[in-house]
């Protein structure tokens, strides 16, 4: 099961490698709890997920994952300052409405934040726009009229937001369907994971 999760979600492996065993983790938009379950099974991580979707809540509970039903856009008021080693937002940033506020909440609640998101600057996306269309791909599988993604960004955009919010980037992992990307990541990477913390 673990390998299939990692195959389906390569950003999970990138995220997991940053998390030492025994850490406490809050996974925002945790879906069916796969990442938390993976982290629990491989790293004895103690964690909670936050999810809004009813069916996913029920699945998390079936998976034995602690899950709190809440809308991320209403903030993380239930969680205390610096109460988790890591706050994770995997492939959800682009669908949040109050993205800037949420970024601040992540570094308030977590000693470190980890975010993965689809890179809108990926060359195939750029090509589709060049050809006159909004990008549709495996990472961005929606049409412009039915997409939940309201805040898409490129790697450069994300890094600018971090700078703007006084957030220090501690690590970056850029991937595409062939593996890790080191050359021109904002062009050749379709998914990126960042590790960051609030400037002291």
């Amino acid at each position, binding site marked *: 099961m673990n390998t299939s999760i990692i195959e389906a979600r390569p950003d999970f492996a990138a995220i997991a490698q940053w998390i030492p065993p025994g850490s406490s983790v809050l996974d925002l938009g945790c879906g069916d709890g796969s990442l938390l379950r993976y982290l629990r099974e491989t790293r004895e991580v103690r964690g*909670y997920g936050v999810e809004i979707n009813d069916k996913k809540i029920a699945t998390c509970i*079936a998976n034995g994952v602690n899950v709190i039903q809440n809308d991320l856009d209403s903030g993380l008021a239930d969680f205390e300052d610096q109460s988790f080693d890591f706050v994770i937002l995997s492939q959800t940033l682009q669908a949040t409405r109050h993205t800037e506020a949420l970024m601040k909440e992540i570094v308030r609640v977590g000693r470190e934040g980890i975010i993965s998101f689809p890179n809108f600057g990926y060359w195939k996306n750029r090509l589709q726009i060049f050809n006159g269309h909004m990008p549709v791909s495996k990472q961005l599988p929606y049409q412009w009229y039915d997409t939940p993604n309201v805040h898409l960004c490129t790697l450069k955009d994300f890094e600018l937001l971090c700078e703007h919010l006084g957030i220090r980037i501690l690590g970056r992992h850029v991937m595409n369907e062939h593996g890790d990307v080191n050359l021109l990541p904002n062009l050749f990477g379709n998914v990126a994971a960042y590790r960051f913390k609030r400037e002291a």
Partner: protein
Amino acid sequence: MSGSVGIVSAQRATFEEPLHFSCGKVLPRYELVYETYGTLNADKSNSILVCHALSGHHHVAGSYADDAKNIGWWDNMIGPGKPIDTNKFFVIGLNNLGGCHGSTGPSSIDPVTGKPYGSDFPMVTVEDWVHSQARLADLLGIQRFAAIIGGSLGGMQAMQWAVTYPDRVRNVLAIATAPHLTTENIAFNDVARNAILTDPDFHGGDFYQHGVIPTRGLRLARMLGHITYLSDDAMAGKFGRGLRSGEYKYGYDIEFEVESYLRYQGDKFAAYFDANTYLLMTKALDYFDPAQHTEHNLARAFANVQANYLVVSFSSDWRFSPDRSREIVKALLHNKRNVSYAEITSQHGHDSFLMQDEQYFAVMRNYLERVAEELP
């Protein structure tokens, strides 16, 4: 497939050891009626205690051989293949002390006086109930419950268990409940109590000797309660502005359908429920506040809790709103307890916790399946 636990029968346990109540009074002996469903496993680890709310009792599931229509109040939740699965769990329902369904209460005969306790019955708190329930568990040989489950006032008991007896409960399922009542809730309870207390037939609680029942007060209390257990939308959907005769009669008889419904519910309730029990139950609700000894800090009140928690609220429940459940969740998070929280979208108000709902039942079922898997 899911089914009924079938024909059940109530049992009675007598406790000769005096019970000291929070109010200072003592009952030298008392009885509790209870029912059980399913089979207790060899190491007695698969038991679930179901705590009842204001008007509940020990008849939680199944029906009686001599009264097939008398189906338990949570029969949709409990049974073979149901979320509280009696193929896996040994489920106990009891009537709380002070109740009017067979356990020692205000209408029981006080052996000292030979008359009903009436106004002499001790004011009972959630903590008192939990102590009395622990003695029932002792009697049944249950050291630790797999889960304690309750909605509303029942949820308060489940939470109190985890505070008072942290090593005796593995899981708490706290449904449509709150860490303490809001001011508005206490106010509603006080209006209900006043309806009873000011009924001329109440006789200061000793109406039994007068051969009367404060029916009017009890009826009004129930009508008020009923309104608050529903939601505006649910009432509008069910009755709207419907008129029984289709036109205004310009009088005070029943005209609107909702009046008919409320009066019927009030009459039905007043015919079987004890007025003193109603008063006691509402006071137990008002008094419940595990943070009263920790400077109103719920997280500190929960510091010794070991149980894993499932907290469930309902979107249209304005008496025990989702925000109140979140307070419970927050206190548990502070203590790094395992907790899951589900907010069920439902239009039935506080009564939602007794209704069948796909998402609600999926959450309960999935959680309890894990509880069953993790039994020692």
